[in-house]
């Protein structure tokens, strides 16, 4: 019986709720056995990606990856959290090649480019 990755991810999330560390290990072992039995071990990668999405959604957390030309200040961090409207899982990377500003990748789906590099590139286009 085959299932799409999202179904596996949702089922795994529900199965892990309220379990101890030992319980979670047992659930994960059984989960792998079910994937193998259904001959869908190859979609594990996709299940993990979906699981992350389900986990964040259920916990009302938004994933925000920030690349900035210089380290973020606390003010900017607070502004990002306020703009997200919920708890934020913030990943910061410093990329001097952006020249100025920053880029944001929200929930792996929305890309906001407010970098100086893009602005300058557009000026010369």
């Amino acid at each position, binding site marked *: 019986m085959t299932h*799409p990755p999202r179904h596996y991810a949702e089922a795994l999330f529900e199965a892990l709720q309220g379990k101890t560390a030992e319980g979670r290990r047992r659930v994960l072992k059984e989960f792998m056995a079910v994937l193998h039995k259904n001959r869908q071990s190859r979609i594990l990668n*996709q299940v993990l990606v*979906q699981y992350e999405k389900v986990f964040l959604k259920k916990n009302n957390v938004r994933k925000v990856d920030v690349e900035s030309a210089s380290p973020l200040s606390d003010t900017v961090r607070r502004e990002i959290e306020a703009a997200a409207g919920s708890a934020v899982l913030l990943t910061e990377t410093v990329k001097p090649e952006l020249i100025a500003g920053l880029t944001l990748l929200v929930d*792996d789906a929305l890309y906001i480019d407010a970098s100086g590099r*893009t602005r300058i590139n557009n*000026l010369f286009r």
Partner: protein
Amino acid sequence: MSHIIDTLKKELEGAQADVRIQEVGRVLEVGDGIARITGLAGVALQEMLQFETSKGIVEGVAFNLEQDSVGAIVLGDPQAIKEGDKVTHSGRILSVRVGQELIGRVVGALGQPIDGHGPIFSEAAKTELYPLERTAPGVTAREPVGTPLHTGIKAIDSMIPIGRGQRQLIIGDRQTGKTSIAIDTIINQKSDTRLTTPVCIYVAIGQKESKVAKIIATFEEAGAMEYTIVLSAPASSPASFRYIAPYAATAIGEYFMEQGKDALIIYDDLSKHAVSYREISLLLRRPPGREAYPGDIFYLHSRLLERSSRLNKKRGGGSLTALPIIETQLGDVSAYIPTNVISITDGQIYLESELFNKGTRPAINPGLSVSRVGGAAQTKAMKKVGGKLRLELAQYRELAAFSQFASDLDEATKRTLDKGRILTEILKQPEFEPLPFHYEVVVIFAATNGYFDAVPVDRIQARSKELMMYMHKMHKPVLDAIEKTAELKDETIAGLKKALEEFNRVEKI
């Protein structure tokens, strides 16, 4: 210099935040020329994607829109793409750049030059893009097919005529002369002085590169590259390129058709195209159907071939003639892909291995071959001389089998058999030697009216060559009259009969 810097400073200082917001995806997995992407919720089918890799941008096309992921075919180097790479969608569909500059060039599946003669378009040239996927012209935009496209092959032009805007399938087993017919057709296009030479496009799908190189050399030798474009997606190219190659070539053909010109496109061959599409579909886990082909394998070819048409005067009067090639296995025309394409096209030219091995080349079976356009695509001259050919050959075939067992044949049967042998011999033709249609008319007229009856069967080929040389040297006005008028008027017939009688009196040229 300082003025430029000041202007730039003002721009940067006075700039409002110029924020770009776009939907992105991430690569989940990549391999075998396809990629699976998460995200990109708003992507459209057949939309161009851009993979941002460490080696630069690699393009792809969204092919499968699934609930949790997008399946895409990669149109660049798939080795450059890694799991986790960012993917954006461009808002454009896959297109190819078109223009007159393509004529005489050898290009790849995306229209990029591969002949080593430098860029196709100059920097100043206007960029005109034609989408690979396009709706075919509607019924009211079309006109019935009525102008001949002469292949230069006597058997085809007389019994299975092709018109400009028609789709005529060339079908047969491997090594039966399918590509040779296509090449002869292209070479012959410059010989018809009454009509404009169509732009010819030869699409090699999944062919050996050595074979394609040989074909290009043949075109160059015959002077055909002056009006031909070769588009190649060889066997070594990824399945995605072999899949898009015929669509790219059709887009190029449509460009010329919409300019009011005639174009000819040869798909060599669509069997390999179907296999490439099957490969992509199976890799993208689409449900397999009959023979593991995906369910829309018919639509793959029908939407391609429907774009070949003849447009009405209001739309410019141009045409796109298609000669798709299908390879059968052991002569089985009732297999899946052959029956699909037979039902789409306006006729087929069926080549048989048995005829080929017996020395009948081109190995056309006139009984199983048909042109649904028929006489509407023939000149009046050819209609007159070719009218009875098919019937006489059919009668000959029927009696030939019977005569193997019968010992005593009546005179009528013997005459039919002799006539059939002469006609069969007359219709043989070496490859890469297409004949202008007025020569075809003369030879077939001579054969059907008994002027070769006294010639031994093994001398007929040589004698018909001598006839053509004789007509060219001694009776050019008759040839010119047929060429110019495309008719056999009474005075032309009288002149032709006189010439043939004189020729028969001459032992050897």
